[in-house]
């Protein structure tokens, strides 16, 4: 008996739509891909095909909520279209024993960004919405991110002199900043009012997704172009004094120091950035 071959064949029948359909149409063609004894071939061929199909479908359906919930806005807009894309992802991306659901969710989100950008059954902003929901989920659930906001520096209380000098602002681990072609925040607000907009403003929009307390929550902030530019300079390698100089140079302004320090304080308070010593 070649049990590993038989079990590999069975497992594939359970999770591979195309292989199951081949088995249903031509059992010999499917089973020939595995080195099976006559007894094993006969046993697999004797499985109730209806129940086998129902079992395979139930496995796909069982996993679906784990992908549907993080992308609930998209599924609300067009469940049939999103279900089609889920089916496709399920069959293209064979889920293995060592896969982590968070990583799978991120992969599905990136898959949707690409797939929905050209899907005529969905609004023009659908690809961006996939990115938005992916980043929101990441801020909430990334198991590799930092702890909650309990250790945020009190930005308001820190004097300017203490913030300048050798302090290096950096994005807090777990914070995601996304750039969008469409005003997805506006789409979310419309959906919260019970509407599903056909279109939304187009341009360049930046949003920060910030893990918050209690755990598994996140806050979402629209960023002005200037704030986004400031955040892009907070790489943990530039002291605040240099960031002030660079931003003043970029914006062509010479007296922005207090405004920038104020913005850093706000970003500290919101948990978007933290200060490191190097």
């Amino acid at each position, binding site marked *: *008996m070649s*049990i590993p071959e*038989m079990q590999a064949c069975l*497992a594939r029948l359970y999770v591979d739509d195309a292989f199951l359909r081949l088995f249903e149409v031509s059992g010999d063609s499917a089973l020939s891909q595995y080195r099976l004894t006559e007894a094993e071939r006969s046993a697999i061929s004797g*499985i109730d095909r209806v129940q086998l199909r129902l079992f395979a479908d139930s*496995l796909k359906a069982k*996993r679906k909520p784990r992908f549907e919930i993080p992308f609930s806005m998209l599924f609300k807009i067009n469940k049939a279209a999103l279900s089609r894309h889920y089916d496709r992802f399920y069959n293209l991306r064979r889920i293995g024993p060592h*896969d982590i659901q968070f990583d799978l969710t991120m992969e599905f989100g990136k898959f949707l960004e690409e797939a929905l950008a050209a899907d005529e059954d969905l609004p023009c902003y659908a690809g961006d919405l996939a990115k938005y929901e992916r980043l929101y989920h990441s801020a909430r659930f990334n198991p590799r991110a930092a702890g909650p906001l309990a250790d945020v520096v009190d930005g308001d209380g820190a004097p300017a002199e203490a913030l300048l000098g050798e302090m290096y602002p950096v994005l807090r681990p777990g914070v995601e900043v996304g750039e969008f072609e469409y005003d997805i925040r506006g789409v979310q607000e419309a959906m919260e009012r019970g509407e599903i907009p056909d279109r939304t403003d187009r341009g360049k929009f930046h949003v920060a997704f910030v893990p918050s307390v209690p755990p598994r929550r996140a806050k979402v902030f629209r960023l002005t172009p200037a704030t986004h530019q400031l955040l892009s300079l907070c790489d943990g390698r530039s002291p605040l004094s240099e960031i002030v100089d660079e931003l003043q140079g970029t914006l062509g302004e010479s007296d922005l120091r207090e405004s920038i320090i104020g913005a850093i304080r706000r970003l500290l308070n919101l948990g978007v950035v933290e200060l490191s010593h190097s």
Partner: protein
Amino acid sequence: MPEATSSLSEIPFLGSGIGFRRELKKRLFELHEEVDFVEIITDQYREDPRAMEELEEVCGYFQIIPHGVSLSVGSAGPLDREYLRFIKSISDLTKAPYYSEHLCMTRAPGIDIGHLSPLWFTEDILRNTIDKVNQIQDYLGKPLILENVTYSFEIPNAPMSQTEFFNRMVDATGCGVLLDVTNVYINSVNHGFDPDKFLDEMPMDRVVQLHLAGGYWSNGFLIDSHSEVIQDGSWEILEKVAAKANPKGSILEHDRNFPEIEELLASLQKARDILGWTKRQERSYEAQAPQETKPILASIAQAG
């Protein structure tokens, strides 16, 4: 006699408990004296580091039995050592007297099936399973008990029956049985066999723990959904089990569509009544609350 058999007899009485679900947490903590012990799904604590903090909190209220879904003891090929390390960490943290899993296959190379799938009961798979069970018990340092699963189809022409497989496996390893009473009922209904005969053929002297749950009908098939009131058929089989076995504990599994907690507690009490247990029955194992949670428990009691 395999060493684990003597360990089975050392397993303390646990009583009537419930599967711990986050949706029930608040009420379970409030009514913890009505629940003798809880069962957790080990895998739910794997990906989220914050979940471990919650688990420690639950340890402060209940004796926990960890129940896994990914060991795939019936699969050919080696054990997943990384997963084994993980379940040992949970088993040790909860100070559980045993670890429970399923007699099934959940993976193949490159494939996570995502659900418990039936085995084809052969000599090769029996040998492989015995070897794996021995490895797991040696590594965990405690008994493993394995559950009978539901199956929507049988793989025909198996060289041996499931009950023969169970008997030979427990004899060779000293492991125990987690008898899912509802799974016996569901399989007997869906596949047309006599549950009495099934119970007579199972190694009932090795039954350590029971499961009970409620399912629903779909297209003439009873689905093991863990979402409904326990069917009469399950209770009837439990009465037969009470006459044939001496389990240490029984767990009610309810995963969604939650009723009021009082309904669930009533099912716990019904199980106690059928099995001849009382809530006040002396337990030989005391749940050990971490020191830092005891002041918290005291303040909750005062506030309540």
